[in-house]
């Protein structure tokens, strides 16, 4: 009996510890990024790091300005959002309000399958299929551009946006729909003027989560954007994102060098950005529930 007590106490302690592990891990991630990344700021001030326009980590003198990379990430993300947000919301409307029966299930499955495709595979398809198309369509020297990245990433954000928007639409009470229809609205008027506003905060959350996914995406974006660390002026230019920089350069750095520290510092920037984006998304999701 006493044995069993002791064993139970042990198990319950382990369970409690596991419960707190999530916090511990988030803190550990932050601590380790800081530990390796902050060392950079001894040689390169934070302001210069964020606004510097030269990212030449291995030339002499080295440049550790991540501004071009931030621009690259922003451009690709905005492009992806412009494609995936309207398409995603439209698909969610169609699937939740118009499609019925087997068609609904089929479309849902088709879109959810996208979420399952690994990002290297999408990157590979983007490289071999989309890039030549873009090169021919716009007569540019290379098909590996910000636009190619945006299109690839738009499809990666789509499943998130569609499924969360659909949840939000489904959560709108039946009475809202019935009331609108009873007032003589067409179904389309009902969707635009009642459904979308009622599901508004859920849709905002869906968009934020989709964007969070796009900003953090690494492999596909590295394979299709051409990786040129310059401030982009058009969508048809190669760019380099924050994530791709880490992935592409970490293998070639010397541990403990400024370059190595700089890559961790980029990690801090990414961590902070996605943290904020997710926090906002979470706020909006919970507003929905209340």
């Amino acid at each position, binding site marked *: 009996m006493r044995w069993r007590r002791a064993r139970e106490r042990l198990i319950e302690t382990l369970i409690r510890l596991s*419960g707190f*592990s999530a916090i511990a*891990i988030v803190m550990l991630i932050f601590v380790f990024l800081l530990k390796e990344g902050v060392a950079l700021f001894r040689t390169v001030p934070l302001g210069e790091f964020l606004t510097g326009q030269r990212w030449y980590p291995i030339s002499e003198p080295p440049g550790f300005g991540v501004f071009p990379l931030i621009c690259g990430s922003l451009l690709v993300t905005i492009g992806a959002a412009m494609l995936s947000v309207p398409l995603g919301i439209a698909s969610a409307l169609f699937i939740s309000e118009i499609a019925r029966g087997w068609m609904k299930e089929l479309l849902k499955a088709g879109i959810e399958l996208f979420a399952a495709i690994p990002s290297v*595979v999408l990157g*590979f398809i983007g490289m071999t299929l989309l890039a030549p198309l873009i090169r021919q369509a716009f007569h540019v020297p290379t098909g590996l551009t910000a636009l190619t990245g945006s299109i690839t990433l738009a*499809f990666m954000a789509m499943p998130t946006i569609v499924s969360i928007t659909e949840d939000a639409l489904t959560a709108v009470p039946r009475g809202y729909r019935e009331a609108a229809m009873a007032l003589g609205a067409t179904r389309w008027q009902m969707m635009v003027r009642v459904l979308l506003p009622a599901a508004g905060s859920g849709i905002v959350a869906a968009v934020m989560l989709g964007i969070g996914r796009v900003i953090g*995406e690494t492999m596909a974006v590295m394979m299709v954007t051409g990786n040129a660390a310059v401030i982009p002026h058009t969508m048809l230019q190669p760019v380099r994102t924050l994530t791709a920089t880490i992935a592409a350069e970490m293998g070639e750095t010397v541990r403990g060098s400024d370059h190595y520290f700089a890559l961790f510092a980029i990690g801090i920037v990414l*961590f902070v950005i996605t943290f904020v984006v997710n926090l906002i998304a979470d706020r909006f999701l919970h507003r929905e529930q209340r």
Partner: protein
Amino acid sequence: MDPATRRVQAADRQWRRAELIQRVAFALLFIATLLVALASVLVMGLILIRGAPWLSWEFLTTMPARGMRAGGIFPAIVGTLELIGLTVVFALPMGVAAAIYLTEYARDNWMNRFIRLAIVNLSGVPSVVYGLFGLGLFVIFCRFGTSLLAGALTLAIMTLPVIITASEEALRSVPQSFREVSHSLGASRWQTVRHAVLPFAVPGIMTGTILGISRAAGETAPILFTVAAFYVPRLPHSVFDQAMALPYHLYVLSTQIPNIPQAHRYGTALVLLLLVLSLNVLAVVLRARFRRKRQW
């Protein structure tokens, strides 16, 4: 024409216009949806059509040859399987325990809201940042080196939020009365969890775990600096060895190795896709079967 008729006609015109707008809008919505759904069919169909002819027993079971331009992808397949096996071993117990804590033990206070917030954020951390973290903590700080162990731990941490969320949902769907009956029979809290709650949540936990693992299997960025080897001529002997992995191998083949038959790349992509999709299908089938069998 009297004003009443005119009003009726005006209303009629307005209604017709609204109907027309609706028809156009619905058509556009349909096209948008089709575009998205068709794109996924296109991507998968293409990989299947171009990759399938390249698949052979030899491709699956031999080592790469001639600078990876020929031969098979055996070590990459083995590496990925070992990696996800280890990931489950680390992530599953911890994830389920955390979910049990959140559903069965925790009260709704600030500490637990904090935990939930941490989980939400954990699921949003970019995969490459997990890679940096794994490099900093497991490879360097813990001195595991670039190894299966470091990579599996990194992937486990990345998979944790998925497993916790799914397990929580599974545990919550077990009716409260099960717990009440167990308590009324004199069972302790742990006994209740162990015998009256957990067994009924197993299918849900399994579904979530498989989905989490399928994502981990396809991830490249977290293993880039923690496990992945460009090329290792032999299979890993222990968890401290480097290993090849399918997603990284596909990346290497498509960006670092010129003059390679395109079909070789498609074949590799197909194997990875099949592995990930079959895990997904398994999860969906499990969920469907469980829903049908559920008796409460």
